[in-house]
């Protein structure tokens, strides 16, 4: 069974969780030999930007020592054989330049999502 996992909501609970929960669960499932790929759409396309930096949070002197590093997590996921698709219209709309992005992404036009979805047994929109 081949599954495409869609991530659309971005930076939702990522500071408290120190992860994006969907990128995390995809990594965990890949570790269990799941045959999965990931599609970033909407604001989640921002996750592919190399320069994200969430470090420095501190509350009452309690410092966060493991801030999320979502771009690194995507690179690691890619390294495990998971394709990371990104909707290129969403990048352009947000003014994100190609040079800002991690390597190894697969770009897909919004108009071609229907064709992409047809290639998977299931499509899970988180």
């Amino acid at each position, binding site marked *: 069974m081949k599954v495409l996992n869609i991530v659309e909501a971005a930076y939702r609970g990522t500071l408290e969780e120190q992860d994006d929960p969907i990128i995390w669960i995809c990594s965990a499932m890949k570790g269990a030999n799941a045959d999965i790929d990931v599609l970033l759409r909407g604001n989640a396309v921002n996750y592919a930007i190399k320069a994200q930096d969430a470090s420095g949070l501190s509350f009452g002197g309690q410092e966060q020592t493991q801030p999320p590093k979502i771009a690194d997590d995507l690179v690691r996921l890619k390294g495990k054989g998971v394709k990371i698709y990104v909707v290129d219209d969403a990048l352009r709309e947000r003014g994100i330049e190609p040079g800002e992005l991690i390597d190894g992404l697969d770009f897909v036009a919004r108009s071609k999502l*229907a064709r992409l*979805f*047809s290639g998977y047994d299931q499509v899970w929109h988180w």
Partner: protein
Amino acid sequence: MAKFLLIESRDPFDNNVVARQYDLAVNLVKEGNEVTLFLVQNGVLPARPGAHSALLTATARSGVEVLADDFSLRERGIADNRLVEGVKAASLSVIVDQLANGRKVIWH
């Protein structure tokens, strides 16, 4: 040809991505698939004739079956005999049946 069920829980008044989900439904039909767009929760709001209803009618005219959860309609005081053209009220059990029949299902 595959069969898809797109469940839309959000509405275009509050969220400008919803129109893209309607487009996705139409594009899936253009790719030769059979598609049901099932509106639930606030997703039924444009089923009442209003500013964004034309999007739903256009989606239905493109060959997508557009259904609206009868409970969500009633909860919002939308009479099922007052729905915009192309939208039909339906029981949530349609989702369970289509799931059980193996449709590719996507919740938004």
